[in-house]
């Protein structure tokens, strides 16, 4: 196996890192140039204020409960663990009892986490203040 085959193109990692920096600076500069070029040259203060007697713009209050995000996070965490079960399921017969026990242990650990979340009240939907 000729490892140089792999090494040579990856040598470009370094070059790309330098390019990253170039791009970083370039975008910084362009953004500033552009904003300056397009900005209104007339910086009379009044023009930038809120229209006459119009009320201050109020933000849309965040109506989504934080509990929702917590749910989403928990879902994400447990969902991701599926990736470990997928290969196990495919090779279930090959792995046999050993694989089964191992996966049960894994699920047990997940269950501990689940119980913990439950007891902590993270799953209680109505518990919103």
């Amino acid at each position, binding site marked *: 196996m000729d490892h140089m085959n792999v090494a040579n193109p990856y040598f*470009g990692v370094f070059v790309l890192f330098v390019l*990253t920096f170039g791009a970083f600076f370039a975008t910084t500069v362009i953004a500033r140039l552009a904003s300056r070029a397009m900005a209104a040259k007339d910086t009379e203060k009044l023009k930038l204020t809120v229209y006459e007697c119009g009320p201050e713009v109020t933000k849309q209050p965040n109506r989504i409960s934080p509990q929702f995000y917590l749910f989403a996070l928990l879902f994400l965490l447990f969902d991701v663990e599926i990736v470990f079960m997928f290969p196990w399921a495919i090779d279930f017969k090959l792995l046999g009892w050993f694989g089964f026990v191992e996966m049960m242990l894994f699920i047990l650990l997940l269950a501990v986490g689940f119980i913990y979340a439950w007891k902590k009240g993270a799953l209680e939907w109505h518990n919103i203040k």
Partner: protein
Amino acid sequence: MEITLTHYLILSTLLFAIGLIGVMRRTNLLMLFFATEILLNAVNIGFAAISRYYGDLTGQMFAFFVIAIAASEVAVGLGLLIVWFKRSGGIDLTTMTSMKG
């Protein structure tokens, strides 16, 4: 044109570079987490491609591990972000300078 390992690796490095730029440029904390996800997934592409090149499945297993770790990192980060947002009403990192010096 045949797509070789090199192409995958260049893709992965490009993605990594994009992620790095994001990390450096963004001031929105949510975007920062997006950027770190891009970084990790760029590496995943690399792992999968190399694994395929060697005909060795371990590389793909590594990708799974990376996904799991990325998820837990993001979970910790987002959990904190929620608390942060509830307390300070914003997720802009330029406001995060109470300690300096």
